[in-house]
Structure formats: structure tokens, C-alpha cells
């Protein structure tokens, strides 16, 4: 599933980060920020309007991602 579909406070692992356009700069940046396969992520908050942006905890860092940005990240829910 996509990171945008992950429920709040549910641990998941990044499976892939896709490019939406060729040589997608946002995808490259997401990877530099640590969104790479195998990393644990969790959604910790939503913005007040249309639940956008998402606040994503990855490693020891919290990043605010707009929904369009987060849609590039695929995740798999961790077994509870």
C-alpha cells in the first residue's frame, strides 16, 4: 500500500520509492532523507485540512510530506 493509505500510529516498512516523472527530483530527495526499502515508518499526525500534509516518523526524524510526495512511497504494514 501507499504511505498515504497507512493508518495513523501503525508501524510499517518502506518497500519502494517510485518515480512519478523521469529522474524525479522529489523521489531522489525522499531517498536522501532516508525513505529507502527496509526503513521503519509511522504516520504520527495529519494536517488539519484534508489530512494533508502527513507527518511521518522515519528513524529518529519527523518529516512533513504533502500527500503527493508521500504517494511515491510504498509501505508494508508490520505484523502487529
Amino acid at each position, binding site marked *: 500500500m501507499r504511505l498515504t493509505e497507512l493508518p495513523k500510529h501503525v508501524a510499517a516498512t518502506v518497500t519502494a520509492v517510485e518515480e512519478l516523472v523521469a529522474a524525479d527530483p522529489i523521489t*531522489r*530527495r525522499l531517498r536522501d*532523507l*532516508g525513505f529507502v526499502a527496509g526503513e521503519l515508518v509511522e504516520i504520527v499526525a495529519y494536517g*488539519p485540512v484534508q489530512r494533508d500534509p502527513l507527518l511521518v516518523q522515519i*528513524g*529518529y526524524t519527523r518529516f*512533513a510530506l504533502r500527500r503527493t*510526495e508521500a504517494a511515491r512511497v510504498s509501505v508494508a504494514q508490520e505484523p502487529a
Partner: protein
Amino acid sequence: MSEATLRVALVGNPNCGKTALFNQLTGSRQKVANYAGVTVERKEGRVYTPAGRIIQLLDLPGAYSFDAASPDEEITRDICHGRYPGEAAPDLLVCVADATNLRLHLRFVLEVQRLGRPMVVALNMMDAARKRGVRIDIDELQRRLGVPVIETVAVRRNGAADLVAKLDSHELPPAPPALPADADLHIAVREILLATVSMPSRTGRIDDALDRIVLHPVAGLAILAVLMFLIFQAVFSWATPLTDGIDAGITALGTLVTQSMPEGVLKSLLVNGVFVGLGTVLVFLPLILILFFFILVLEESGYLPRAAFLLDRMMYGVGLTGRAFIPLLSSFACAIPGIMATRSIQDPRDRLTTILVAPLMTCSARLPVYALLIAAFIPRETVWGLFNLQGIVLFALYFAGIISALIVAAVMKYVRRDKSEHTLLMELPSYRLPNPRDVAIGLKDRAMIFLKRVGGIIFTLIVLLWVLSSFPGAPEGATLPPIDYSLAGMIGHFLQPLFAPIGFGWQICVALIPGLAAREVAVSALGTVYAMSGPTDTVSLQLGHVIAQQWSLATALSLLAWYVFAPQCLSTLAIIRRETGSWKIVAVAAGYLFALAYAASFITFRIAGALT
């Protein structure tokens, strides 16, 4: 430069505490300028080590990666690679990493290490890391990175003593062995972390607890609204007496200095040119200092990105970003600090849009003009049994400014050629208590930038305006006020046909020219045109009566509409020039504001004329 001078650059992720470390090392011995041709801040300072060595320390802009995504990161990349024109490659790189956030920061450390240049890693915020129970095997980390690793606590006295001692040892560390070019840095980071760091929990409990409240959809927005309200209260209740005090002080000083001088051109130049110019520059200082005090405290504490998080969706809808909120809000006090605050916006396109719409926020200088015209022309009536008509008009003027800012931002989004996605990708750093020294240094920087870079332009223009308003002098037996015979008067009369379609008489046209100095000056300039003198309050009262008799309602409404857009604030144009480095953008800003002002006044004048 002496042999002993070592050139060192601080490099690291945003929020690694690099600037605090820079402030700790250099104290007040620092210089803020811009990199040539761009508006990225260049901060350099000197460190005098105990062994008597002088170190030139450069604080490079924070970067997540050498795969640069902003002008800041490009500069950092190019200087680290030693290929930035006009900047020699640093002798030593000090790569700063936050010990509580190594998963992210170590990746960049490895990217720096890959450069194969002499470097040292400063493991910063070690106090916070220990408090959280993070344990780091420094020796093993050094061995694995192949570079010296030194613990620092940038916010504590002598927290960088070990780093200074390292810089003092006369040998540069050898260049580190670089990883193979195709190595996956993330895998390398995981291996290093596994071998060297034990971390009990992923985030601080305080951060979790605070974010639950601060980012709550309802409570979070309420907290933001209360905070902004308090800041505005503070700005207006603290800045107004200071501004008035500076104004009075400069005027008194001018009178004192010129007391014994004979009446004449020189005295007029000093009183109405030099001292007014000085006053115009200095009265901005309280506003800038107070607003930036709050902005810096919010930024240092980690709250500012949270405010941006809460507001991003709303701002993004009209082609802005959550980061634009604070600069735009500041612009309600004054566009000068507002435009200076746009530096925290990463995307250059978002930053430019914010700079261009900031003057549409109704600044405090427009209030005297609104007050004069509303009091003179809008009856004090109660409408719908509840509202005061004058209040409604004032609200409508503020509202018109905001709505037009949204429309302008949306239009800019639509016409922009570069349609690639704007990014947010914003880190919300851990909450921190702001360090007084860092806030103080930040404030000093803002004040100096304003005084040095913008003060000069404003001062020159004010003196130029004095020349325009004073020469040539009135002839013998003149019946009209002297300003009518001056160049400003001639320009006003010359421009009158241009402004006739929007209902401005020549008096308004003439008053608009000295009004270039600052919007509220238009009130006293109108007073001058109608040959009144005395304190502003009295002038404004008398003036109200005169214009109520002489102007039509349509003209008054037209002038009100003009002031919603009011392109004629030289200080705003000067700060736009400084912050964008481009006269072209200044021309675009002045041009579009003028066009909007003219169009709005034209429509207002015609409709009001038809109805009355």
C-alpha cells in the same frame, strides 16, 4: 592572510546545531554577507585559539545532500567540492551531526567523507543524546569513518573546547579513505549504527507529547491563533512607543543641531532631508527587532515548521507554502520584516511569490491614511443594527488586500513556466529551548542587514525626495504653498492627466510624491499641499474637514482603493531589491502594484461616481 590562518568550513544537515556551534566558536567576531550574485547568506567568523592560531570559519548553509535541491545546497556542494568561483576550497571540513539523529545525519557525513578531503566529525548535542540514553562508541565510529570524531555541545559554555583543541593541533587529519563510488550510503549507515550506537527509543518523549497537542487539528490551530494574537499585541504595544520615541528623538536632534543655523537651503536639507531620512530608516528598527525576536524564538524552539505544517494545505491551495504564513503575517505590521523573513522559504519560486504578495498585506503605515479618509467621508452609522459602517469599510480594505494577494499568488502559479511540483518535504526538528546568545546574534544580523543594505538606499531616496520637493523655491509673492512650485509639484501637475480618470486632483498627485517616502507621509504631504502646518494629529483633523468639503466621495473611495495596493513605498522596493538581488523583480513588483492600484481606483471611482 598569514601562514597560520587555517580555513575551516562547518557543514552539516539543517537542524544539526551548526549555527549554534558557529556562534559558540566565533562569538561576535562574525560577518554576514551574501554569496556573490545570489541571496544565500554567507556567514564567516574568526576563531582565536588558545595556541594563538587564527582560524577563518565559514558556516555553510545546511544541506541534506550534495544532490542539491535549493540554492543553499548548491553553494554548500560547490564550496565543499572546491569549485565555487571566488571561494578557495576550505583546508578542513568540520562535518556537524546531531547525535540524537544519526540515522539521517550520518548519511550526509558519508557523503562529505566521500570527497576525500581532510575532515573532522563534530558529534553535536551530546547532552541531549545522553539524556535520552543514546550510547555511542566514539572509538569504533572513528575507526569506521576513518576521521576524527569529537563530541560537542554547542549550546553549553566551552561545549566546543575539544573541537577547538583539535583545530589547534597543527596537523590536519589525513584525508579519509572514501567508500567506493557505487556504495549504498544507506546500507553503510545501517552497518555503522548497528556497530556503534545503542538507542533506547526512537524519539524524545517530550517531542511526542508536545506534537500531540501542537499539531492537533483543533487545539493546534487554536494555539497558533493565540500565539499570533499575542505577538501582534506585543508588536503594536511595544513598537509604537519606541517608534514614536525614535521619531521624536530624531526630530529633536535635528532641531538641536540646526538651532543656530540661519534659515535657508542648508538648514532645510538637514531638517527635512537628512534627519527625516535618518528617522525614516530608524523607525523601522523597533518593528524589525520585535518581530524578528519572536520569529527567531519560534524558529529556534522548533515551532515555526510546526506552524507551517498546520497551514500548508491552505496556503498551498493558492500557490504558496505553509512557510509563507509567518512572513505574510509579519507584513501586516510592515512589509520590510515580512520580506526579510521569507528567507526561511526553501523553494525559490515560493519565496518569490511570497515576496511579491507581501506588500498587499495592509501594513500599519496605511492606517493613518485610512483613518483620515474614513473619518472624513464614511458616516458613523450603524448598519444592520449591529455593525459600524466605518469599521466595515476598514475591514473591507484589509480583506481586499488579502483576497488580492491570494489572486495574485494563484495567477503567478498559473503563468509560471516551471510547472514542476513544489516540494514541502520539511523536517520538524526536536523542540529546543531557544539559546539567548543565538537569538541575540540573529537579531543583530537582521538589524545590520537592514541598516547597511537597505538603510543606505532609503536614506538616499529620502534626500532625493527632499530635493524634488524643495527646488526650485517659491517665487516672490507666491500665493500657493512652496511645494507647488517645486519639481515635485511640477511632476504632480504633469501627472495629473494620468490620474484624472481615477478622480485624483493635482493636490493628491503632488502629495503622492513625498508620500513615496512612507505611506503615512502622504497625510502630512496633503497637509503641506493644503498649506497647513503643525503636529500631524492637528493637521489630520483640519485636513479631514477640508477634504470632506473639496473632494467628492468617489475621489475619496478611489484613494482608499489606491492605498490597498499602494505601490509607492520606497522602503519596500528597497528591501525587495536587497532580498532578490534583482532590479527586474523590483520593477515587476512596482509595476503590478501600480497597475492593480490604478485599476481598482478606476473601477471604484466610476462605480461610486455613477451611484452618487
